[in-house]
């Protein structure tokens, strides 16, 4: 036995160079950890890092795990869950450390920074800081753009210093589009309304159905509740907000509203609606918007996304439950005029109006079918398409809505969203021609894939980050959080794991959200 072990030792040892010496932690991180009572990682409890099941999230989590083990002497466990379960656990604060990402709804640092305010439904960390609240609040009412930006930058500095989260990288948008899919533009938001897409030329499917792999199932398909990009991609086709994304640059263009006026103080917006109908034939009125918005901020609806409406007068009080939903500063002056009163000027209002949270909903349908109202065939929308079939985890079929106000301009008659969540399987389906459009691919093959002629890249106003649950010890100590954040090598993660041109993030707000 001993001889065998010796032989194996020889076998294992020969041809291998000495292992590299262990990387020394940055002295700053080691010092912070020691100050917090864990010198060299001793006595640090075994925490769990939660991520949603995906190959790239797993690799990034493993890289972070190893960096903490090696440089700080801290061992953590990794756990993964399917997207909906993951979201549920994060929302219930049933986690210690979790992976998150955020796509800014408007091109402004505020879209990111207000996530970590107290009233935000998207702040699972349990962290709040009076300084931070004060700075964000001051930026809301600051009329001078330069001073406003300085306030936001100061707030971001507080956020990074206190580190309830740590950023990893800023996304780029990836798209692989078959050459017969025309009219796809790369834009700052990676938003591609299908009604502007055409199928033309060699290889175009004979049945005229465009197949897009949408990946994970959305967390919800209720416009008031959905807060993920998967949900928005579905809802923006079934509903139409006051404004909608221009397919070329994703800037907001008039949609359900034909025009809008802003009062000189920037606090009163008047939207003039176009003549339009719901898919069941009912006329679309300003009251439908008022109903939808009151419903979104109503605490009984339980939206974790309604803080996006907090700039509307009265929204905060309604969300807090101290005022009835009828006090929300949005009213229908007549059937086609919507007047919105704001707490402070919000030049980004039209960008927000493109989001599902601000979509109108059909009151009779919601009241009749309750939680099931979003399921075909109950669903009544005002968008360019009807969701005619929804097989959970498999596919969603969209067909042109003949009653859409601009039905004549909708070029694509039908399309399908597939839910292939494994990027390798999705890529195989794409290469086999069963899928015509992809936005995710296996990271191992990324450096070759981004050189393909069918690849379309673009900026993405989004950030990938990790959050700490600061209610749990020892994550309540900012020194621990900073030390953990400090030793993660972002450059290596983007260069060797992601391989698709993403940029390492040393700050939270992506460069796309900053003024040029």
């Amino acid at each position: 036995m001993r001889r065998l072990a010796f032989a194996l030792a020889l076998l294992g040892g020969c041809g291998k160079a000495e292992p590299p010496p262990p990387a020394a932690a940055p002295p700053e991180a080691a010092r912070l950890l020691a100050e917090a009572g864990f010198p060299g990682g001793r006595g640090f409890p075994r925490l769990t890092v939660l991520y949603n099941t995906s190959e790239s999230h797993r690799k990034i989590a493993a890289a972070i795990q190893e960096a903490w083990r090696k440089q700080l002497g801290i061992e953590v466990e990794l756990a993964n869950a399917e997207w909906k379960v993951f979201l549920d656990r994060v929302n219930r604060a049933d986690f210690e450390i979790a992976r998150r990402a955020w796509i800014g709804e408007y091109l402004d640092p505020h879209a990111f920074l207000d996530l970590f305010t107290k009233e935000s439904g998207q702040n699972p960390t349990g962290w709040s800081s009076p300084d931070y609240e004060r700075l964000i609040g001051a930026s809301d009412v600051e009329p001078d753009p330069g001073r406003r930006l300085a306030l936001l930058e100061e707030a971001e500095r507080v956020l990074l210093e206190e580190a309830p989260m740590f950023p990893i990288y800023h996304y780029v948008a990836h798209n692989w589009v078959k050459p017969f899919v025309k009219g796809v533009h790369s834009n700052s938001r990676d938003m591609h309304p299908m009604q502007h897409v055409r199928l033309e030329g060699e290889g175009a499917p004979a049945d005229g159905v465009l197949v897009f792999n949408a990946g994970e199932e959305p967390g919800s398909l209720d416009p008031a509740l959905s807060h993920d990009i998967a949900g928005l991609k579905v809802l923006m086709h079934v509903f139409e907000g006051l404004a909608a994304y221009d397919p070329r640059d994703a800037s907001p263009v008039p949609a359900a509203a034909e025009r809008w006026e802003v009062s000189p103080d920037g606090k009163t917006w008047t939207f003039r609606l176009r003549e339009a109908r719901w898919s069941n034939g009912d006329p679309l009125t300003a009251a439908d918007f008022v109903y939808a918005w009151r419903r979104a901020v109503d605490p009984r609806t339980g939206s974790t996304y309604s803080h996006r409406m907090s700039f509307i007068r009265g929204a905060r009080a309604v969300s807090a439950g101290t005022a009835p939903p009828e006090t929300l500063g949005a009213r229908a002056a007549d059937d086609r005029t919507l007047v919105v009163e704001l707490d402070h000027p919000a030049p980004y209002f039209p960008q927000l109006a493109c989001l599902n949270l601000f979509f109108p909903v059909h009151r009779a349908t919601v009241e009749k079918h309750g939680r099931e109202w979003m399921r075909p065939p109950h669903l009544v929308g005002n968008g360019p398409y009807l969701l005619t079939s929804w097989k959970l985890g498999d596919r969603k079929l969209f067909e042109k809505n003949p009653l859409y106000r601009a039905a004549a301009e909708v070029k694509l008659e039908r399309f399908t969203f597939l839910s292939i969540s494994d990027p390798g399987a999705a890529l195989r389906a794409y290469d086999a021609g069963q899928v015509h459009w992809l936005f995710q691919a296996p990271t191992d093959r990324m450096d070759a894939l981004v050189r393909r002629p069918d690849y379309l890249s673009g900026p993405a106003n989004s950030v990938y980050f990790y959050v700490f649950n600061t209610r749990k010890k020892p994550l309540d100590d900012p020194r621990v959080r900073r030390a953990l954040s400090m030793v993660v090598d972002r450059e290596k993660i983007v260069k060797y794991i992601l391989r698709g041109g993403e940029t390492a993030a040393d700050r939270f707000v992506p460069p796309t959200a900053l003024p040029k």
Partner: protein
Amino acid sequence: MTPAIAAPAADAGVAPVSRSPTRLAVRRFVRNRRALASAGLLALIGLATLAVPLLSPLDYREQDFDYTLGRPNGRYWMGTDALGRDLFVRLFLGGRISFAVGLLATTVSVALGLAYGSVSAFAGGRTDNLMMRLVDVLYGLPTMLIIIIVMAFLRSRSVVTVFVVIGLFGWLTLARIVRGQVLSVKELAFVEAARALGVRAGPIIWRHMIPNILGPVIIYSTLSVPAAMLSESFLSFLGLGVSEPETSWGVLISEGANALGTERNYWWLVAFPGAALALTLYCLNSIGDGLRDSFDVQQRQDR
């Protein structure tokens, strides 16, 4: 009690030896070259999964970002994965989990299936009917779904739970096989004889029946080892099995399959774990084959 079996006429001149059925089986097995070589190879692989991770100078967690997705070379004999970890060490480390899952899950399911099937067949009548209908009902349930629910319910992230849970749901087919075999053996003369001698049900099942039905059981269990290994990789993918930085063959192979592409091939990521799994399964199958041949008591001739 055990009379010495007289040596056959062909062996005249050789000193008569006492040959128990087990010894005969061992002899037959040893003479089966393919089975013996497979057993040796399997033992070697098993030993290597224990020894290599201990002895290698490279740690299975060590990430070398200067050499991610690197080809096999002098330092990394089987190349590196996307995080620059040595595949050689990880392969053998993953083998530990896969071996353990395969063997433990199979042991659990064989023990359950053998006991359940033989009791059911031996009891016969209403008890048999009732027990087999229960198996039918359990058959109707989607096994993977139940495993997932049980795993989620237990909320235990220990790998041992994976082994046991997979085993707990793998015995149904085996119970049926065993029952069928026992039914056919039950009416044979030697069982009658034992019964006539007043041997109780337990010893009859254990000493007289089970040795006679071992053949199909062994074949089926060698086939259920790979099935258990595959179930483990599926559970790991769902986040219910092993998690980083630990690994298993199933996990390594599914990772490697994603890295296979037309533009650039990281073939080592799938070739080595795939070869290891294939080799192990081949060994298990030929061992099973050899065991069946040698334990087959109907095969009286001692060639």
